């Protein structure tokens, strides 16, 4: 008797679960490094989406950024990719060029016009849009007022030249490395400085101007203005260096300051914020658009697109920016929200940073070589990085290093 009862209950439960599972299409979406800090935002977004879209069930999964590619590649190969994946711009180009993403034009329709032109350009490959533009940010300079005062620096640098000379002054007077710029993508620096990388299908970055530009970094490195292991410094390491007073200036996305606020309050309280200066390239430095893509093989791309448009719509983008306090929407209307400019006069560094960065958003293109311009891009980029590192760290004259990369690039480009 008892057994029969248990079986009956079991059957009902399983039956119900099976019914439930059949009824809802599950839409799993992956994001990059946003849990647990933004659990509140995503709970809200998922609940709202599920309530307004019966039959669809969004499911949020957050991953560390360096897990996303391997896991996605494995999931695509296994035939079971998620509905949406949070990508950066270079990844969109890589995956789209290899035919691993779903083109979104047919799903976007007129909604395409909601997004800012710069953002759309960033995620367009071969005339087709491959991602829903999401949040963006640009680099700012956050500086330790104590260290700058000790070095006798009166105001934050307004041009790149000033950034270089201020850095030298800080290190000469205080012995502290001034800043640790990300050098992992030197092509981006050439664009920033308005120097061409490819012209007429040939690598051209060994002109005297290019040599002089790289030489500036080599001089900074030699003088100890950049930390000795600057080529290993990424986002996390830079924040850690700044928070422990080992560098005087942060030159990265403003969301880093949120970490300083929670991890190193004492440093945060003496932090000032300035715009990262533009150089001859007339580009806001460090723009880094985040977006959502639909991987090929995704079960229900139309439903996935629905979720994508929901997450990157005006309302949700502004809500997300309010949750992060330091990132910006990529929609035209989103950035007009008064929330973004009110911080200009605030004494709080994060509020200031928001207003400062928002002003740079018009010129926010994620710097990157045109897709498909390089055969075997991975190998050529590595060659460039290795040689530039040798030059900046003083193991090789800059001219010789750049000559060698240009020769290697042109050999492959000629094929």
């Amino acid at each position, binding site marked *: 008797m008892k057994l029969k009862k248990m079986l009956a209950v079991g059957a009902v439960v399983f039956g119900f679960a099976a019914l439930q599972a059949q009824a809802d299409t599950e839409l799993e979406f992956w994001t990059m490094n946003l849990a647990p800090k933004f659990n509140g935002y995503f709970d809200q977004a998922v609940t709202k989406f599920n309530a307004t879209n019966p039959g669809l069930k969004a499911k949020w999964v957050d991953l560390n950024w360096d897990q996303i590619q391997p896991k996605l590649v494995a999931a695509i190969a296994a035939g079971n990719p998620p509905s949406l994946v949070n990508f950066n711009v270079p990844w969109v180009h890589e995956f789209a060029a*290899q035919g691993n993403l779903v083109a979104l034009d047919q799903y976007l329709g007129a909604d395409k016009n909601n997004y800012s032109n710069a953002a759309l350009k960033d995620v367009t490959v071969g005339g087709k849009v491959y991602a829903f533009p999401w949040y963006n940010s640009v680099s700012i300079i956050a500086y330790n007022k104590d260290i700058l005062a000790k070095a006798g620096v009166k105001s934050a640098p307004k041009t790149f030249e000033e950034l270089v000379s201020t850095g030298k002054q800080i290190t000469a007077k205080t012995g502290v490395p001034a800043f640790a710029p990300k050098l992992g993508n030197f092509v981006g620096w050439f664009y920033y400085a308005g120097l061409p990388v490819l012209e007429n299908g040939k690598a051209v970055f060994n002109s005297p101007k290019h040599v002089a530009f790289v030489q500036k970094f080599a001089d900074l490195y030699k003088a100890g203005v950049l930390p000795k292991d600057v080529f290993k410094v990424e986002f996390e390491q830079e924040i850690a260096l700044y928070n422990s007073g080992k560098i005087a200036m942060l030159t990265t996305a403003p969301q880093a300051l949120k970490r300083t606020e929670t991890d190193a309050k004492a440093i945060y309280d003496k932090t000032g914020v300035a715009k990262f200066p533009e150089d001859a390239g007339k580009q806001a430095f460090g723009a880094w658009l985040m977006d959502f893509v639909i991987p*090929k093989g995704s079960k229900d791309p139309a439903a996935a697109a629905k979720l994508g448009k929901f997450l990157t719509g005006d309302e949700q983008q502004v809500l997300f920016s309010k949750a992060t306090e330091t990132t910006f929407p990529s929609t035209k209307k989103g950035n007009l929200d008064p929330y973004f400019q009110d911080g200009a006069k605030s004494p709080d560094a994060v509020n200031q940073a928001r207003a400062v960065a928002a002003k740079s958003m018009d010129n926010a293109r994620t710097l990157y070589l045109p897709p498909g311009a390089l055969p075997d891009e991975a190998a050529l980029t590595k060659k460039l990085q290795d040689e530039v590192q040798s030059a900046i760290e003083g193991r090789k004259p800059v001219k010789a290093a750049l000559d060698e990369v240009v020769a290697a690039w042109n050999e492959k480009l000629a094929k």
Partner: protein
Amino acid sequence: MKTSSSYTAIAYLFLAPALILMGIFTFWPVGFNTYLAFQDYSLADGTSTWNNFAHFKYIAGEELFHNALKNSVLYLLIVPVIQLSALIVAKLVNNKLPAMTFFRAVYYIPVITAISIAAVVWSNVYKYDGLLSWFLQALHILPQGQDGQIDWLGNPHIALYMVMLFTFWKGIGYYMVLYLAGLQAIPAEVEEAAILDGANVFQRFWKITVPMVKPTILLCTLLCTIAAMKAFQEVVVLTKGQSDTYTALFYVYDQGFGSNHNFGRAAAAGVVVTFFCMILAIIQFRFFGDKK
């Protein structure tokens, strides 16, 4: 009464769990990998087409892969060093002295520590203002101040050797345990007889210990050689292939899961590495194996 055929059936039954797992996770991947090496594999739709050795032709002409192979071959330098050291350490901890269990455990702890965690710790040891620079400066081996702070993993001339030092630290305990087992199988009489004959410590080590643990040396050298050719995890965590530490398996990983997603090319490079491993294994069997 059991017949011999039912014994065979039972034997296979006992082997089955291991065989099935190995089949799924070892033999099938090796076979599929070899198949992929000759195909253009499309990730999106899972189709593959014969490409007439194109991957092998490509990697034969690619400098990056040559350099990766060169680094992997250089990595083999670790094999004799680690084997000799492990044998000596095993000999030392084979003494019947108090606290020997403690020392055995200490040498073994790195082996059971997850490589990613250990490598994160070591990347701090190797930082230019980290433990190693500090230690050598404290001993006045390196000059004081900024000049003596060496970016151990940033300088291409030394970075690979620093990664090898990490492998050494991580691996020595494993081989020590294997040698320890080999040493304990040596009957005490042999050594006692040698002492009576007046052999000194070195003579006993070379004439008795080494020949008696020769099978273990073969096993350990083989394992260590294959492990060295496969050096990959330590590179990922410590240097990400920067500063001329790009090894052959890192190339495989980078082609497959890096920016190219070229599984065919990755598979071809994997086959080349396997080929190298087999040649080395054959050489080692010639040297240390039993002569018939």
